[in-house]
């Protein structure tokens, strides 16, 4: 008897892979970047489908295929999730303390730096009429 295609294994794997690679997309929006719930949801959905597929593959192996592929996909998906979790919940939180950063009420340290056209700009140039917000960022390189 020809065994049936076990679709939840394949779809679950694709969804789990999507959980990792969609980070590039979701990171654009503060609501999905501050906490990556959209990615975690995809990982969860992928795991659920993979498990359904594996239960079918092993529980009713005369009827469904995928006990080998399903196991491989599960291991790959778990590795991707482990990598994602490490990056999100560990690497992203390795930020210096900045204990000597100027505090509220203190004078902002003066500076003169070139802008995008190479023109020198001082802090004083930026403060009129009502001040400025300085955004320090990691850079695009």
């Amino acid at each position, binding site marked *: 008897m020809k065994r049936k295609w076990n679709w939840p294994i394949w779809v679950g794997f694709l969804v789990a892979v999507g959980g990792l690679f969609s980070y590039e997309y979701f*990171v*654009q929006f*503060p609501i999905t*970047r*501050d906490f*990556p719930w959209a990615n975690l949801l995809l990982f969860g959905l992928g795991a659920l489908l993979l498990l359904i597929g594996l239960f079918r593959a092993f529980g009713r192996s005369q009827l469904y295929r995928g006990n080998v592929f399903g196991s491989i996909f599960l291991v790959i998906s778990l590795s991707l999730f482990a990598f994602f979790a490490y990056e*999100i919940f560990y690497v*992203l*939180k*390795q*930020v*210096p303390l*900045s*204990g*000597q*950063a*100027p*505090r*509220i*009420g*203190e*004078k*902002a*340290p*003066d*500076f003169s*730096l*070139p*802008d*995008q*056209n*190479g023109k020198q*700009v001082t*802090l*004083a140039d*930026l*403060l*009129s*009429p*009502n*001040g*400025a*917000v*300085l*955004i*320090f*960022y*990691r*850079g*695009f*390189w």
Partner: protein
Amino acid sequence: MRSFQHRLSDLESRGIQVVAISVDTPDINRRQRQKLGYTYTFLSDPKAEVIRRYDVLHPGAGPKGADIARPAEFLIDSSGTIRWVNLTENIAVRARPEQVLKAFEEAQRPASQ
């Protein structure tokens, strides 16, 4: 930084200038600014001198172990005094323009006795 571009008119209408600072060169800043459609000022601090002065250096966090800035935001009033600071504990979590606008409004109010 995208969200600051979206709310730029609200900030500028209050007379607040928006300025981004990183170790990127003016060339990269000009290109990225154009590509991403940002219209506020980008300043270049390749030696991270000002970044160090504000103690927002993230040593070795850049490509090939270069020193770069950690994400941080400062609101400075017209007299040069710091009015609000945001030092995130998570690189992915950045200040939103709404926080800056709120801090600005609060600084405008006369100090309560």
